[in-house]
């Protein structure tokens, strides 16, 4: 899509009726329309008058034409016969038999399965519903009967194909969505198998029921339904809803007060539907379905919002339907009678600013690097865009795609700027960190670790590994945010033992006694003690970012086991250093901002030891470290057990004190106005 103005408008003669949605043949860039059931029209963009274009009159009524990418258009006749357009055009008057007798086709859909077009359509006869699956190349047709449902019948269908199985979703009049699985590999040739269906979703939410009219599948866990939401005792409201089928929740809904035609299309993460007299395009983004998202606890969850629309009224004052041509066809509902090419200019003027992000990105696909970045910056400047999060996701994806295709291209500053200024999440731009890892862009990784709430453990581990493997010399030349370590590691003189001023001595005499043996070891082995930071400040800051990222132990542990032993020891040494640093203060926190907490440090230490214990025990250089760690932890445990005792005694004192509280009686003045 290059622009939102209509690219063209064609009309049939007065008295002729377009009887099926116009489609576009992707291979030849031709449009195909059918009028008066039998007359095929094929034309190209440059043709102006529909009367003068190619015309073929067929011998039977056409139900629909389906256009498939990589496969030619397929024509479905009302009699249930399917022909490819090529075959038909060779002999337009060839005889088309009727194979479904007096059943009426209700819905059809075409897919590509491998190289093979598959057409599925549903028919109705006397309240019974049948499903036909036609494989064109094999010329096989299977007929299934849809399991009967008492008191309700299907209103709308949609289907998708995955792993050789067609999943047919039916919206029933009892406000439920049922799922029917149709295997594509059908060996038995027996007639009329009955398809059983299973309930996927009940369209009711806290008492109100959604009367769906049409729906589309968004991904494996989400479907969008257009319909009217009726709560008891209230007027029903038309709205567009997205449901999570995994958790049976209503993800989001948008009210459409002006009413709709009841039709909904969805292409490339955009909804198309009529809203009043306006065709509305709405972007949506479905994040990976998670419980958190289902119950609305996820940060920054993306909700769809109106991004752009075509104003119906500016096109013509008469009732007409524009074929808003995207890469695929949009159905036409009623006849259009006049050519609107003369009005195209006005239309273009009316909509100067409504380019959607997706369209801009498509436009920029082949632009030069500088133009590309400039455009994107401009796009970002329009901060008040309603669907900003989703757009940023698209921008990042576009950037990353470009980085992948062009190995020399890597806009580090630009990416950093986006990540730092916007609330992004990993799932919004999953490739970003992969690219950064590849480029060893530690700064970007650090920022991502600090900001993304949902980094998978695998990526966290990959970051850790990169951070540990990068040489100190390289890091010294690199820009890294040192905020988290600045207060406890002296950046300038980190080779000398420096005590920072902020550290308080919170130990009591008893503890001093306890850790005396630790101190003695420190003196004898100055290199192995915890006072000196075992890694450079940059590396420490990077490791801190890893420590503070969220993770789940069970998922991290398998990856952590792959960490080379030497790196594990370095990391452990650093953790030990942090732990000692933490324990210096009575409130067991590190000075400064964005520092890891003691429990984060302890958790990582335990994890690391769990993952590498057998190896670390064997390493001579780790022996010293382990024994120090052991002694220090033991001292801490003793210290805390003493603290617990003191807490108990203090509590008892407080309790006794409270009983003697003398404030059991007072005379106070109260004014009531």
């Amino acid at each position, binding site marked *: 899509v290059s622009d939102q103005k209509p690219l063209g408008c064609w009309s049939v003669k007065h008295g002729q009726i377009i009887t099926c949605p116009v489609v576009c043949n992707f291979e030849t860039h031709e449009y195909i329309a059918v009028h008066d059931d039998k007359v095929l029209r094929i034309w190209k963009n440059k043709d102006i008058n529909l009367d003068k274009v190619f015309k073929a009159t067929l011998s039977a009524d056409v139900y629909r034409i389906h256009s498939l990418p990589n496969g030619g258009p397929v024509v479905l006749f009302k009699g249930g016969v399917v022909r490819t357009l090529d075959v038909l055009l060779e002999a337009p008057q060839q005889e088309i038999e009727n194979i479904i007798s007096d059943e009426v086709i209700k819905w059809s859909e075409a897919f590509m399965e491998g190289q093979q077009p598959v057409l599925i359509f549903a028919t109705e006869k006397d309240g019974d519903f049948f499903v036909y699956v036609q494989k064109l190349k094999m010329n096989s047709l299977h007929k299934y009967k849809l399991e009967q449902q008492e008191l309700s019948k299907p209103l709308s269908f949609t289907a998708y194909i995955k792993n050789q199985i067609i999943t047919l979703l039916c919206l029933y009049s009892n406000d439920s969505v049922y799922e029917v699985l149709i295997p594509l590999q059908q060996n038995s040739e027996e007639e009329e198998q009955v398809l059983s269906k*299973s*309930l*996927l979703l009940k369209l009711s939410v806290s*008492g109100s029921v959604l009367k769906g009219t049409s729906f589309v599948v968004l991904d494996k866990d989400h479907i969008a339904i257009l319909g009217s939401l009726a709560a008891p005792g209230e007027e029903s409201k038309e709205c567009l809803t997205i449901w999570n*089928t*995994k*958790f*049976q929740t209503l993800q989001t809904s948008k009210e459409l007060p002006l009413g709709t035609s009841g039709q909904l299309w969805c292409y490339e993460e955009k909804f198309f539907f009529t809203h009043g007299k306006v065709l509305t395009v709405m972007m949506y983004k479905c994040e990976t379905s998670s419980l958190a998202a289902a119950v609305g606890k996820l940060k920054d969850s993306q909700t769809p919002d109106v991004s752009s629309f075509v104003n119906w009224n500016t096109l013509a004052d008469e009732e007409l339907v524009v074929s808003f041509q995207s890469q695929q066809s949009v159905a036409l509902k009623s006849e259009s009678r006049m050519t609107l090419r003369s009005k195209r200019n006005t239309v273009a003027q009316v909509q100067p600013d409504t380019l959607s992000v997706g369209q801009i990105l498509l436009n920029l696909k082949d632009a030069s690097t500088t133009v590309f970045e400039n455009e994107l910056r401009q796009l970002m400047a329009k901060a008040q865009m309603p669907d900003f999060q989703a757009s940023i996701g698209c921008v990042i994806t576009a950037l990353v795609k470009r980085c992948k295709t062009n190995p020399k291209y890597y806009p580090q500053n630009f990416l950093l700027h986006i990540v730092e200024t916007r609330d992004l999440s990993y799932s919004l731009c999953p490739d970003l960190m992969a690219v950064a890892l590849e480029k060893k862009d530690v700064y970007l990784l650090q920022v991502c670790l600090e900001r993304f709430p949902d980094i998978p453990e695998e990526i966290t581990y990959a970051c850790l590994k990169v951070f540990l493997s990068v040489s100190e010399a390289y890091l010294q030349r690199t820009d890294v945010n040192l905020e988290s370590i600045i207060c406890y590691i002296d950046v300038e003189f980190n080779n000398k033992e420096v005590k920072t001023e902020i550290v308080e001595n919170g130990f009591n005499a008893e503890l001093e006694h306890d850790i005396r043996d630790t101190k003695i070891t420190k003196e004898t082995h100055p290199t192995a003690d915890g006072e000196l930071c075992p890694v450079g400040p940059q590396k420490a800051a990077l490791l801190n970012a890893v420590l503070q990222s969220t993770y789940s132990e069970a998922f991290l542990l398998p990856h952590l086991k792959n960490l080379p032993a030497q790196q594990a020891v370095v990391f452990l040494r650093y953790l030990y250093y942090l732990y000692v640093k933490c324990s210096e203060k009575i409130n067991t926190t590190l000075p400064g901002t964005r520092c890891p907490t003691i*429990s984060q440090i*302890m958790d990582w230490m335990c994890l690391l030891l769990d993952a590498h214990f057998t190896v670390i025990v064997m390493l001579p250089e780790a022996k010293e470290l382990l024994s120090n760690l052991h002694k220090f932890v033991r001292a*801490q*445990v003793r210290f*805390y*057990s003493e*603290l*617990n005792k003191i*807490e*108990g005694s203090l509590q008892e004192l407080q*309790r006794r004190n*409270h*009983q003697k*509280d003398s*404030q*059991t*009686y*007072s*005379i*106070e*003045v*109260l*004014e*009531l*106005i």
Partner: protein
Amino acid sequence: MGEFEVHRVRFFGLVPAGVRCLAYQRNGARLALARTDGAVEIYNFAANYFQEKVIPGNEARSVEALCWGAGDRLFGAGLGGEITEYDLSRLCVAHSVDGGGGPIWTMAANSSGTQLAIGCEDGSIKLFEVVPGGIQFERNMDRRQGRILCLSWHPSDTYIAAGSIDAIHVFNVSSGQTVQGIMVSYHMQKVKRKCIVWSIAVLSSGTVVTSDSFGRVQFWDWEQGTLQESHTVSTSAVLSLSVSEKEDSIIVGTSTGATYQFQLLPVKTGSLEKRWVRTKPFQHHTHDVRAVVHSSTALISGGLDAQLVIRPLMEKVQKKGYDAALRKFTFPHRRLVCCARKARLLLFQFSQHLELWRLGSTDKTGKDGEVLPLCRMPEHLVQLKSKGPEHIYCSCVSPCGSWVAYSTASRFHLYQVQYKGNSISVKKVPKVPKLVLPAYQLQFSADSGSLFIASAQGSVHVLQLLEPGGCKHLHTFWPPSGCPEAVYLLAVSADGHWLAAVGGDWAIHVYNLKCFKHHCTVPTYNCAVTALAIHPVTNNLVIAYSDQQLFEFSIPEKQYTAWSRMVQNSGLHKVWLERDSPITHITFNPKNPSHILLHDMYMFCILDKSLPLPDNSALLMNQSTLKQLPETARQWQLHAFKICKKFQPLLFADLLDENSLVMVERPIMDFKTQLPLPIQQKKFGT
């Protein structure tokens, strides 16, 4: 409007007893609760969770288990070894039967309520049949070693599962034989420790759910005797569990005060395989949660911290209303304090003794919020100890302070207190008339000349007090159409002309004291009366109901007053109606006839009838806003409800004279420190 000198009293050392067990009446929406001191309380969920009835405890009668049998009969059993049936209209023990197996630890009724099974100290399980007028021993189950701590019927009534120490057993009800024995053990570092099965439930699928002293909730297949699932929810014991009627949800209570909900959920969406998943944790209690109940819409838990917590399940509640609010009950819904206005005395009622205090005084005045210096400290005058194991039902002190009366289940005492300088003498009035006891409420007349005793079957006795130290029975009022329920609230008019009495059927009868005749009945209203009082000037009866409605009924005219009709027409403020604690006391200011003083647990309110009622858009608690406004601007903001929330939890408030009030508070922390220490949880270290 006015300044008050508030005597803020915090020396009422009431320690509510912990909740020991709960029994939910599935159809009638009543909850029976037993406390560790043996008291039994009935909460009426339909009447906005009002504590409708209280049967005071008895030292000799502990209650370990309660259950509803044969519809609406309530049975209790305890370590005294007896099964007791309670008379819920007379609020006393109807009769009791010895269980014959030593102390009873548990009792459960079958699904139809026709049979009771008890678990005894000697390891026996005995079945009793509920018959009209009592219960009858039916048979013994196989006797096992070790006390039976919990038991549960299979919903089909054919099996009973029982938990004891280290084992659970399943019995066939008709044959009495053990059909399965499962050892529940816990091994830790090769040391075997005793495992106490605290609670048990049998699901209709045959799954047995147990909770034990190692913090585990376990699901057993009783036919195979195998463990299906085990969830460790706590490091300390899981003491109680309850299964929802649909058997898709379980609530458990632990000794750390936490409760957890388990739900039976499909493994995947659409999958038929379901598993029990621990879903919601709640920490409403600070001490052991000894009893839990899973009603259809709420999780109900009771703890040794004396709290009853009703936590609605939001997914089961259809709309915002009374049922959607979290409720916590710690203190009773009735008065335990009585005030002698003229003598400035307070009488505190404890479970087995009374305390009489004289309030202090001050000679200074001050501005709003100031604490005034005391010129006389409050004085603890007398402590009256009730003899015997019975707990006190009710007590009262006369306005002049010279008479104190109280009643237990079987005895009624009247004392004359004489003050001579600094010395006080308490004289028991001999030869009190023999009355049908217990008395449920006592009330002296305003001139301290007579005493009204609320009694069973709707009757009210009138005693005339005579100097020196005597009394005589004058009259007994009976409701004209009879009433099986006892009278639980009394109100007498200041001129000594009228007496209003409310019985357990919530009908309010007004009697004429001059000619000892029934005067009229207030039109019935379908909710429990929580407080009522007669206005000293107009003789209007002000009534507060448990759904927070207020009515004013003119006794001379025998009809609701115009103001009351106006209130009903315009409706009370939404925030007022959404309060969750009932009005427990109403009083008046004789100098300001348009004022009604009322209070509940969390607020004190002066209702000024001369001001307009607030509509829902107005701020109900507007005192702090008003104080910030200049005098002239206040006029437009004034409304009838003047609410003060400074004193909490408020057990009692009364007017001493036209500008001094007494407020009796019982801060939660004060009595929490008197409870046994909860399980210590570490704060330091990892």
